[in-house]
């Protein structure tokens, strides 16, 4: 998988079939971050006046996630494979705005899977012997991070 910059300023992420399937599988998990975890209020210094705003924030995040879920489905459906000698290739074209959209979605997956692992510190995760339930969550977390890094690097 590699990213190239086109003359028109767009980027192209060229993916093998297996890579494409793993991206589709990853995105099908969206959203993973629970909307009710969001709060405007500091835990140490809560402002009672912001209680109502907290609910507004959670509703807004929830709506945002529903919109994104639909957008992901539409986006994936719009990407057609091209054939080469070795099989299908998936050329994913995107501009900076689309990259930002995808990076944000990948981050939801990364943060949500990390939360489902009880928010481990990086050193704890490295020493961990994951069980069969934890493996898929670690996979989501790490692969999302990898795609985020590729896209962020392309943008910079």
């Amino acid at each position: 998988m590699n990213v190239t910059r086109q003359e028109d300023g767009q980027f192209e992420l060229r993916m093998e079939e297996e890579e494409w399937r793993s991206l589709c599988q990853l995105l099908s998990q969206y959203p993973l971050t629970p909307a009710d975890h969001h709060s405007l209020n500091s835990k140490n210094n809560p402002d009672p006046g912001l209680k109502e705003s907290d609910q507004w924030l959670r509703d807004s995040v929830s709506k945002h996630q529903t919109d994104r879920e639909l957008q992901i489905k539409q986006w994936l459906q719009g990407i057609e494979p091209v054939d080469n000698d070795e099989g299908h290739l998936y050329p994913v074209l995107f501009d900076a705005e689309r990259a930002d959209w995808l990076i944000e979605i990948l981050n939801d997956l990364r943060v949500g899977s990390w939360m489902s692992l009880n928010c481990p510190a990086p050193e704890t995760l490295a020493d961990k012997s994951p069980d069969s339930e934890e493996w898929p969550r670690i996979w989501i977390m790490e692969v999302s991070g990898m795609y985020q890094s590729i896209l962020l690097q392309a943008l910079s």
Partner: protein
Amino acid sequence: MRFNAEPTVMPTVDPTTDQKTQEDVDPGYLVICWDDPVNLMDYVTHVFQKVFGWERSKADKHMLEVHENGKSMLVRESMEMAEHYVHQLHRYNLHATMERSE
């Protein structure tokens, strides 16, 4: 014929609606971003650039402050604008809060 005639029916204005309170406009709220071990450093910089329209160097400075000090005070704004920024940061899954400045 008068082209600048006063309308005979004037709209009624309710002073209680669509008026901002003093709290809404006072830049008395701080937007704070908190550290967590999961968000990538480049991602945090990217989000600060997107949400606040900052140059890379300013976004990097605040990202490093979050990473090294556990938090960074990003902006001081009115209640309305502080809420707007915190909403944006939460959409990107950054841990941001707002509080009244002393």
